[in-house]
Every structure is written in structure tokens, then in C-alpha cells.
């Protein structure tokens, strides 16, 4: 028994973690042997990042009340309260977004804060901090690290001038340069890389593992996971769903475990199959320049009265579509609404056509937090339709009719059951769920023919989630309003949409009826493109 225990470099046992009462990790056990590559997969929000944050001593964990469970690293129980402790113990992390100093060379970045130094006169007076850098020695060490990776990286190159792939190589070189490193965590290292570069990174990972360093590899690209990992751990909703051996599985099976088999049975809020005739929105080759949600030429059609879902993993561009059409971010392409071409990059024009938008950025873009509820609900309508205003002095002055706004707000507060003291309460003081309802009310007041709703349930509790979805569904039923929902949560889309488009790398990977096998959506998300598009 004892000898078996020593075989593991890292043992995370029965780890639990709550965030403000939300359980994000539930009895997770993760074992890593020396020199082993573990693939960690799971949907957004499955708990991968939280698990890694616990391991690397991210301060967020401590600030939110720590975690339960044991972590044993090299036979000793550990609990890091800062990333420095983790680094000193030999746990390194290569981030998805590069943490490099742009004005520094590869060498300087690799050896940052670990530079070999030379003694000089001033250090006698002021201590070691005034030692001179030993440039020659630095050069030597950096080149050794680079050589280990067997890549062609000029150590003199400034980080800001490097292509993305080289930035990634520099990050890796920095981590392996540390003598003490025993475990490296790679958080989607290939996400931003071209295929050839990604292949080099995979080769490097193998080489590192062969030197005895263990690796935890997080990726959404299942092919990569299957290619290089020794073991695959699938997380779902905060618990370990399954451990798999690559040679005995395939990407479909992994996707099934990620999405969850139970999804197949009855989470849909309605079962009837609805038929739609007229196309209300036609998008042709839309490009949107939204940071981290780039859209690279999507085309799709939405029918009148339909609830259309847009899903996909974070950062793949699904949020960019609504933001682009509504003119929040610069967009190019052709969008037709009821056969009429929509002027892009012009929010006023789009709103005038009878299109409303409930933004994913509720607190930033969706609400006037320091204004009262009735103002928040009425404001867009006042701007777009001149409602709640009275013309005075022969139309010279448009006077805001606060009483009309308050009266209308009361109706929406009642019908959407917004919990508040009065319609004069500030939007800031409401809970997340009630703020979301406020955003919906704001859109409903416009009496739109088409509503874009982005991430309607992000950051709100479970009870409120259902209420919000029911409200949307009900509104669609009652008024025949077309709704386009963008969401990271596949379950949510499946539960209320008629059809769902999955966005991957800024493009539509496929459009399927919501009644399709959830695994198919999972595969689309993970980049296995299918040609199947439902008419």
C-alpha cells in the first residue's frame, strides 16, 4: 500500500469547493504519476479552472473561504496560499493568455526575477538587489532551455515582435528553466495557435514528460488530448465524470461524458415540434471584430416566431454575432431583416427596425446602475420610439413623462415578478436575477419583432434561471416574437430553443434541431465539423 502511494507525484483527494453557496467542485479526486500527461476536459464551468486554481494557490480560493479535501504533493500535504509558494514547491503554470513583458527579449522573459547576478560595489552598501545582471550567463541558460525544446527561437527577440507560437514557446521555456519544476499545468496552450505550431507544442509536451516532469493538459481539442495524454479525466458540473485511457476510447465517447448522457431525457420545456414559414432574419457572411469573440463570416437564417439558439465554447465567437448585428462592435457583411438590409454599426437604425437586444454584459451595457428601475425600463423605448414623452411648446421640447414611465414599470414589475422595494429603487441594489428581468423588461417595452438575448442566465441563481427562461418562452408563445438566444450553457439552449447553431472558431459548425442527440452538439463544439444542416 505504502509503495503505491509513493508512486504518485500529486494526489488531490475529495476536493470540494463552494463559491458563495454555489458548489463548483464536488468530491474531486485527481492522481498524477511522475512523467505522466493527464488530459483534463470538461465544458465551460465544469470546474477545471477552479481545480487548477486550488492547486496553484490562486488567492481567489482563499478569499472565498478556501476548499475542503487534501492535496498531497511529493508525499507532503500542501495548501498554497499564494502562487509563489506553488512555484517554489515545483508546480508551474503555462497560461492561455501570455504573461510576457512585451519590451523584454526572450532571454529576459525566460529568466525574469531569476537572473544570475554579479557582485559590484553598490551591492556592498545596498545589498544584493543592486547586483548587476550576468548577461552572458543569462544567455547561456536561456539557450539551454530553448534547446531542450528543440525549437528555433532567437533568444534576442523582443516578446512584442514574436509570432503567437513563439510567445507560447517562450512561456514554456520559462517554466522548464526552473530547476525545481516537477508538475506543469498547460491551460489550453494550443487554443490560439495554428495547427503546425500546435503540433510543435504537443511534441514539446511529450519531451518534457519524458524528462520526468508531470503535465496536466487542459484543452478543448479532443484530438490533441487523445494524441498525447496517458490518461483523460472528464469533469462535469464539478465532479469527475469518468477516467478514460486514450487507446480505449474516441472523441464521441469523451463528448458524451462531457455533455452528460442524462441530457437526452426530457429537459426540454416543450415537446411539440413547431413549424415556421417566413424567414425573418437572414445573415450572410457576417464578420465581427469583437475582442476574444471574433466572428469570421457566419451565415444563417432564422424563421419568424422561432426560438433560435447560438451555442459554443467561450471565446469561439458566439457572443460576437448579436453584438455585431446590433452595432455594438464593428461588423461587416449582409444582414437582412424582413427582407430589408440592415445598416451595420448603427445601433439606432437596428433598434428602429423593431429589434431589441439584451446584452450579456448586464452591468456594463445593459443597465444604468445608478438610475431608478423605471428609468431603466423606459429609457431605450423613450430614445427609440419617443414614448413616455410629452411635446411642449409646439414640439420644441420633449418633456419626459415620469408618471407614464412609473405606471408602465409597475406593470412589468408585476408581470415579471421583479423583486424590489419600489419602481424608484436603483438598479444597482437589485440581485442578479432581478437585474436580468429588468433587462428583459427593457427589451419587451420596445414591443420588438426580434429579440437578441445573450447569456440570459449567467451569474444568476438556479431558481431565477428557470424564471428567466420561462419568461422568454412565454413571451415567444404569446406574441410570436422571434428570439435569438446566445448561451454558453447547452442545456439551457436545448431546453427552450427550436434550433441551435453551434459556433466554433468564429464560424457556424452546424445548425441542428434542439431535439437532436446532445452529443452531436458536443462534437460540434469541440471542432468536429459536420455538414448536416437542417432545412
Amino acid at each position, binding site marked *: 500500500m505504502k509503495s503505491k502511494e509513493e508512486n504518485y507525484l500529486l494526489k488531490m483527494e475529495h476536493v470540494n469547493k463552494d463559491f458563495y453557496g454555489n458548489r463548483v467542485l464536488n468530491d474531486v479526486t485527481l492522481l498524477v504519476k511522475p512523467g505522466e500527461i493527464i488530459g483534463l476536459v470538461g465544458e465551460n464551468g465544469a470546474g477545471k479552472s477552479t481545480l487548477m486554481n486550488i492547486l496553484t494557490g490562486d488567492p481567489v480560493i482563499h478569499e472565498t473561504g478556501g476548499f475542503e479535501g487534501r492535496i498531497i504533493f511529493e508525499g507532503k500535504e500542501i495548501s498554497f496560499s499564494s502562487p509563489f509558494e506553488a512555484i517554489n514547491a515545483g508546480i508551474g503554470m503555462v497560461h492561455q493568455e501570455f504573461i510576457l513583458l512585451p519590451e523584454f527579449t526572450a532571454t529576459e522573459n525566460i529568466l525574469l526575477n531569476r537572473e544570475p547576478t554579479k557582485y559590484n560595489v553598490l551591492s556592498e552598501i545596498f545589498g544584493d538587489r543592486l547586483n548587476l545582471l550576468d548577461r552572458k550567463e543569462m544567455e547561456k541558460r536561456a539557450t539551454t532551455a530553448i534547446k531542450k525544446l528543440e525549437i528555433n527561437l532567437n533568444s534576442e527577440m523582443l516578446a512584442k515582435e514574436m509570432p503567437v507560437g513563439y510567445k507560447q514557446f517562450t512561456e514554456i521555456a520559462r517554466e522548464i528553466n526552473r530547476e525545481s519544476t516537477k508538475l506543469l499545468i498547460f491551460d489550453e496552450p494550443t487554443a490560439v495557435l495554428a495547427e503546425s505550431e500546435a503540433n510543435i507544442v504537443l511534441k514539446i509536451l511529450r519531451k518534457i514528460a519524458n524528462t520526468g516532469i508531470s503535465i496536466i493538459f487542459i484543452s478543448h481539442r479532443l484530438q490533441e488530448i487523445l494524441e498525447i495524454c496517458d490518461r483523460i479525466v472528464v469533469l462535469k458540473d464539478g465532479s469527475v465524470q469518468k477516467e478514460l485511457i486514450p487507446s480505449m476510447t474516441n472523441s464521441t465517447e469523451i463528448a458524451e461524458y462531457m455533455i452528460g448522457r442524462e441530457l437526452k431525457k426530457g429537459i426540454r420545456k416543450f415537446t411539440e415540434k413547431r413549424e415556421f414559414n417566413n424567414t425573418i432574419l437572414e445573415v450572410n457572411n457576417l464578420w465581427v471584430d469583437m475582442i476574444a469573440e471574433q466572428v469570421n463570416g457566419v451565415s444563417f437564417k432564422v424563421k419568424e416566431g422561432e426560438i433560435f439558439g447560438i451555442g459554443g465554447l467561450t471565446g469561439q465567437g458566439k457572443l460576437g454575432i448579436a453584438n455585431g448585428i446590433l452595432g*455594438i462592435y464593428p461588423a461587416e457583411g449582409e444582414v437582412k431583416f424582413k427582407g430589408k438590409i440592415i445598416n451595420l454599426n448603427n*445601433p*439606432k437604425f437596428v433598434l*428602429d427596425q423593431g429589434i431589441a437586444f439584451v446584452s450579456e454584459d448586464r452591468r456594463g451595457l445593459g*443597465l444604468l446602475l445608478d438610475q431608478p428601475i423605471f428609468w431603466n425600463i423606459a429609457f431605450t423605448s423613450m430614445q427609440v420610439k419617443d414614448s413616455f414623452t410629452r411635446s411642449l411648446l409646439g414640439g420644441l421640447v*420633449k418633456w419626459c413623462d415620469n408618471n407614464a414611465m412609473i405606471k408602465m414599470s409597475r406593470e412589468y414589475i408585476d408581470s415579471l415578478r421583479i423583486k424590489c422595494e419600489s419602481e424608484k429603487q436603483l438598479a444597482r441594489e437589485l440581485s442578479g436575477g432581478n437585474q436580468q428581468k429588468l433587462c428583459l423588461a427593457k427589451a419587451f417595452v420596445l414591443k420588438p419583432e426580434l429579440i437578441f438575448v445573450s447569456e440570459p442566465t449567467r451569474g444568476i441563481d438556479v431558481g431565477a434561471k428557470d424564471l428567466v427562461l420561462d419568461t422568454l418562452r412565454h413571451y415567444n408563445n404569446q406574441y410570436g416574437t422571434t428570439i435569438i438566444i446566445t448561451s454558453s450553457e447547452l442545456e439551457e439552449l436545448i431546453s427552450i430553443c427550436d434550433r441551435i447553431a453551434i459556433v466554433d472558431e468564429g464560424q457556424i459548425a452546424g445548425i441542428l434541431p434542439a431535439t437532436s442527440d446532445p452529443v452531436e452538439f458536443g462534437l460540434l463544439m469541440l471542432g468536429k465539423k459536420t455538414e448536416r444542416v437542417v432545412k
Partner: protein
Amino acid sequence: MKGKLKNAIESVGLPRIIIFLFLVLLFILTPFVGVRFDTSLNDVIIRFGMNGILVLSLFPMVKSGCGLNFGLQLGIIAGLLGSVISIEMELIGLTGFFVALGIAILFAVIFGFLYGLLLNKVKGEEMVVATYVGFSSVSVMCIMWLILPFKNPNIIWPYGGTGLRTTISNQGYWFHVLTDFFRINIGNYISFPTGTILFFAFLTFLVWAFFRTKIGASITAVGSNIDYAKSCGINTDRMRTISVMLSTIIAAIGIIVFEEGFGFIQLYLSPLYMPFPAIAALLIGGASVGKASIKNVIIGTFLFQGILTMTPSVLNSIIQSEMSEVIRIIVSNGMIVYALTRIERIRLR
């Protein structure tokens, strides 16, 4: 009971209560140091009427998110131009006063528009840029006052015959036309400047009403959340420009009302530090860089002018020295420093 008191204190704001109590203390002290209570009160009211509009002029820019108007001098210069041109034209009484206002507004519209364009290019750094716009415009005008072709011997240097004097008296033109309008005298020492106060009240009402219109609401939205405003289809740059023009126009009116009560038009470097007392007053009133109300304007002007009037007269009598200017500077700049540190705290939270 305790909760109620706490709520009351919070809604008024502790700093205002402290300053108010200090002001009350100063008034109580007046008889003991040989200063007349009623004269002091009258001074405070007169100065309130003279300065109120300048403080009010800051309001639109705070509402639109452009911050405190440290470039108030631009509006003041427009007002000064109006005043000297009206006197150059030898217009007397209310006619002279309103012609001065008209010309000043004309200049303020032009200056405000250009100033607005500039501030739209430096979003987030408005206050720093505004400070230098204000300073440099004063310097430009130092040259202009010398070379503009004014001819009225009452306003140009007596020798040489060109260039305006540093201080020009408006007595004999439109001095006290507002102040003496329905002036109410109570006893020998109190003389209520009805016209000035009414004029201030009228402008305040106009500004309040403006912000109750659709366009005013749009400006408020731009100030509260510029991204939100954009997503509602509001032309945010236009709204900001309107607010800057409005601030500049009101400042131009404000300085003319100030001169009307003061009796002198001060040119050259005197507008240089004019924004600071106005800004300090607004901040004492409870406003911050991003938030202000009409209530803040009125309370702030009263408290600030009260302190400015009372502290020097009472303290000078106690310690027998001339400190009024020093105290004025300490109070007004101290208040600005206090307010600017407050915003940082809110942002970091």
C-alpha cells in the same frame, strides 16, 4: 430612532453637517468678536446670489460624464467679452446688461462647441485637459485684451490709448441692475438682492427643466454609462458637446451676474483661478466627479460662500491679522483635494 438619525446623517452627508455646524458656530461667535450678525448674514446672501450661477454652470458637464469643468475660464472669457463689448457700445441699465448676456452667449456657443470637440477626443482625461484649456485660453486673452480695437475711454488705458485696463468699472452702465431690482431693505443693515436671487432661481429652474426633457435624459444616460447610451442609439459625442456648450454658456452668464453685483470687470489674469472656488462649492454641496444634483449646487454655494464670508471676518477679529485670502485658498483647494481622493476610492471599490 438611532437608525433614523443615522439615515438622516447619511442622506445629507457628514461633511456637510460638519461644515454647517461650523458655519452656525461662526454666526454665534459674531457678537462676541465685534462683527454684526445681520451684516454678515446679508453678505452671505449677496455672495450666494453672485456666485450661484458659476457653480450651476458646472452641473451639465458633470451630468454628461465630462467631470468637473476645470476649463470654466472659457465661459468666463465669453462673459467678459460680452461685458466689455456692451460697455464699449455705451449701453446703460437693463439694456446694457441683456446685450452683454446676448453677446456673451454668442461667444460661449462658439467656444463651447470647439471645447466640446476637444473633450470628445480625450475621453477619460477631460479634467486634466480642461485645466490646461482654461489656463492657456486666459493667456491668449491677455494678448487679445491688449490688441482688440476698443475705443471707449472708460475702459482702455488712459495713456497710449490702446488696450483694455485690468479692472473696468461697470458703474454708470449696468452696476446692480439685478441687485436693485425690487431690493428689499430690512432695517439699516439687511438689504435683500431680490433680482439676483430671482435670476439665479430662474436659471436653476431652466437647467432643471432641461434635464427633465428627452435630450437632458440622454445626456444623463451618457454620463451614467456611455456604453449603455451607445447601445440605445444615442449619439454620445453630440450629447457631450451639448453639455459642454451649456456649461460654457451658463458660466458666461454667471460671470456677468458676478460683475453686476461686484461692480468691476476684471480682465487679464483674474479669470485664471476662477474655476476652483466654484468647483469647491459644488463638491461641498455633496456632488462628486460623476454625480451632481441641483440640490448640491444650492447647498454647496450657500455653505462655501458662508464659510468664505464668515471665516475671515470672525478669525481676523480674533487673531487680529489679515488672513482672509489664505483661508479662502485653503478651504477651496482643500475641498477639491478631498473630493478628488473620494472618487478614486469609489472607482477602486
